[in-house]
């Protein structure tokens, strides 16, 4: 770590302004060969801007980007890639209608004369994917892949480019445990090969596990640096937020009231098999399971988004749910895991997004004044930080988008709310707000179901956790037995939980 080593890629007193607003204030940063550098900070702290500057997508307003000690010879993303600096964005950059192999070699196709050498590309793609410990077929189409699989393809694509510098934005946000392990193994391998790595993450355990060097950002400035072992997870969180975080999860009252929702024998062909659950007043019911275990499909069936067989009874009344409107009318709301593609209209204003599901409450001629009031209320109640209610929802940070989506769903005044991945890709401060909000809903009598891939989240929030596996409910744990081990055992198909020793 001596100064004698020339960093592979570094920022030297970089500032960046958008119009009048300076969003980065003199940031210094070094990425060394054979090191993993973690960049952490709350949403809006400036992580994305730094990554864009490193990757050539943005030019700094002042300061320098240095590659091997020389001013970086690129000013666009593709030029940066050619120079060996590769960024994997959170929004994947894959052509959905092309095969995995075609995507990996997009723009650098292997050819024999004029003819593309499909076999060679398939074989090379297959090798890369095997290294990543995935079972993705090279000739599968991207559109048929799950989100984590697409992530793996992105990583494979970066590997195929023989990256000198690899920058990853939230690489594990969409991955399951097994895939995360494969990812970590790859990170270790690349580090050993002398690649300079950097990643952003909201998962502090991951940062602790992977990073040789940590830089903490807050409001566009570096507020903390540490090397491996030099900062605890608590320390990181405190540095990011700038204040002491009290216990991130609110306390769980144990009392559960009457049954609110009963779901019996729900089957979604090919996805969910004969799933049943009950939800009681005052409790938060968690649903765990690997990605693809049918948890989202079960929720979507209950919300009328998927055709299904089975019985749903709400407050003792049998319901017929064929369309989302039926569920909404009955008071069942589903908050999607895919907030960008299914939750919010990214090009529309915050207000239009907020009221979309509940427009019938605003009169035949939409009452703009009441809409504005609703928006103001939501902004206050959900602590949505936005420049203006007229700004497009896509311009909000992930955390604020999630809060807006929550506000939008709550505007329909649901009696039951199913929240799928409540905190995916958002910072720890916002997570805490959302956890408190979820708990308050349950305390106030709304039925809450939380679906999550993050086990600590389920353990911290839920009174009871159902575990799904291959479309079926594999089991349930409640109270003290809601532990990571028990959930994982059920999710892995190890049958009944082991009696606590």
């Amino acid at each position, binding site marked *: 770590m001596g100064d004698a080593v020339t960093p592979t890629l570094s920022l030297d007193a970089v500032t960046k302004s958008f119009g009048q607003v300076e969003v980065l204030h003199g940031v210094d940063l070094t990425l060394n060969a054979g090191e993993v550098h973690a960049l952490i900070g709350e949403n809006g702290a400036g992580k994305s801007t730094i990554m864009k500057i490193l990757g050539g997508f943005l030019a700094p307003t002042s300061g320098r980007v240095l590659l091997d000690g020389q001013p970086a010879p690129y000013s666009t993303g593709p030029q940066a890639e050619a120079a060996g600096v590769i960024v994997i964005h959170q929004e994947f950059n894959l052509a959905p209608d092309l095969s995995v192999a075609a995507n990996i070699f997009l723009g650098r196709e292997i050819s024999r004369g004029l003819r593309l050498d499909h076999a060679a590309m398939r074989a090379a793609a297959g090798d890369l994917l095997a290294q990543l410990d995935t079972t993705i077929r090279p000739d599968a189409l991207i559109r048929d892949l799950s989100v984590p699989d697409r992530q793996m393809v992105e990583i494979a694509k970066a590997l195929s480019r023989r990256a000198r510098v690899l920058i990853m934005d939230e690489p594990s946000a969409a991955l399951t445990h097994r895939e995360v392990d494969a990812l970590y193994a790859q990170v270790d391998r690349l580090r050993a090969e002398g690649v300079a790595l950097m990643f952003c993450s909201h998962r502090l355990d991951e940062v602790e596990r992977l990073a040789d060097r940590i830089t903490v950002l807050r409001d566009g400035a570096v507020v903390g640096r540490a090397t491996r072992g030099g900062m605890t997870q608590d320390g990181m969180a405190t540095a990011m937020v700038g204040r002491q975080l009290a216990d991130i999860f609110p306390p769980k009252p144990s009392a559960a009231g009457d049954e609110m929702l009963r779901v019996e024998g729900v089957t979604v062909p090919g996805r969910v098999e004969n799933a049943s659950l009950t939800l009681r007043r005052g409790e938060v019911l968690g649903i765990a399971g690997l990605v693809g275990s049918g948890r989202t499909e079960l929720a979507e069936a209950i919300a009328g*988004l998927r055709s299904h067989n089975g019985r749903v009874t709400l407050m003792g009344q049998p319901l017929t749910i064929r*369309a989302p409107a039926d569920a*909404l009318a009955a008071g069942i709301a589903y908050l999607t895991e895919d907030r960008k*593609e*299914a939750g919010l209209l990214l090009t529309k204003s915050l207000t*239009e997004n907020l009221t*979309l599901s509940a427009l019938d409450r605003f009169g035949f001629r939409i009452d703009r004044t009441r809409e504005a009031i609703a928006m103001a209320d939501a902004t206050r109640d959900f602590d949505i930080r936005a420049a203006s209610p007229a700004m497009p929802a896509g311009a909000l940070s992930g955390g604020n988008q999630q809060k807006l989506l929550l506000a*939008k769903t709550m505007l329909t005044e649901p009696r039951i709310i199913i929240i799928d991945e409540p905190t995916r890709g958002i910072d720890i401060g916002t997570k805490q707000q959302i956890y408190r909000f979820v708990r308050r809903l349950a305390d106030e009598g709304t039925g809450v179901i939380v679906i999550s891939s993050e086990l600590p989240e389920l353990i911290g929030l839920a009174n009871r956790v159902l575990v799904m596996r291959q479309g079926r409910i594999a089991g349930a744990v409640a109270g003290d037995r809601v532990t990571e081990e028990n959930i994982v055992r059920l999710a892995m198909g190890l049958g009944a939980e082991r009696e606590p020793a």
Partner: protein
Amino acid sequence: MKRVDLHLLGPLIALVGLFILGALLNPAFLAPANLSNVLARSAFIGLIAIGMTFVITQGGLDLSVGSMAAFLAGITIMAMNWLAPITGANWGTILLGMSVALAGGIASGYVNGALVTKARIEAFIVTLGTMGIFRSLVTWLADGGTLSLDSSLRAIYRPVYFGGIGWVTWPIIVFAIAAILGEWAMRHTRFGRHVEAIGSNDRVARYSAVDVERTRLLTYVLLGALVGLATILYVPRLGSASGSTGVLWELEAIAAVIIGGTALKGGRGRVWGTVVGVLILSLIDNILNLADLVSPYLNGAIQGVIIVLAVVLQREKRAAD
């Protein structure tokens, strides 16, 4: 935000520019009779384009409207000719004919919409098909020739196109009312908001409990009804329909919608913009006829340039965001 939004104001500025140009080139341009002519002519495409705005905004397309107008004009004329000996040549017959046009339009729009939403065939393909079907049907009904309205009925029906309040003839009035209602529906009603939501992301709309299929279907039905309305105004103008009636109207309507700032990929609809777009296209025609500015061969080229410019402005807007 302080910067002038070219994309919003562009079409309007172009319209004003055309007005000034027209007035400079020929004083007759500003004569009420001429303006009345231009506005009345715009009414057919205008009404259709208002409906098209909703269809395009929800992410669809309807190529069949020109053929549909010809077909509706055909069945309207046939219905009235058939009815005339029974009910006599009077307003009652005309009104029955009008209801045939309107009902036919609604039914045709429903067919298009149902094929798109229920049979889940792409709008482009469905309406490409119905475009040919309507066109053949009217050619067949007319036996390759022209269907003409009975002269006794024509005398009664003519004022619907040529009459009005002074220079403001009925087509202008109907067009204006439709435009105001259309803009209101797009801006201020749940229907309009849902149409925009579906166009910007139908998955989000579905997850937000919007009845996507029904709303989509409704836009096609609305468009069909407006085509029917346009037909009601068209028939008294020439009193006839043939296989060549309404040729390329669909493209003119789509062009007007795009010029007006509605995104072809959907999600953002401006009915007032569409009205401006329709007026721009008719004014170009009118001015080129009034002034020997360029060869009339180039009329299509000028309209083409305007359409491409409108799209370029849309893109600049996006880049500036």
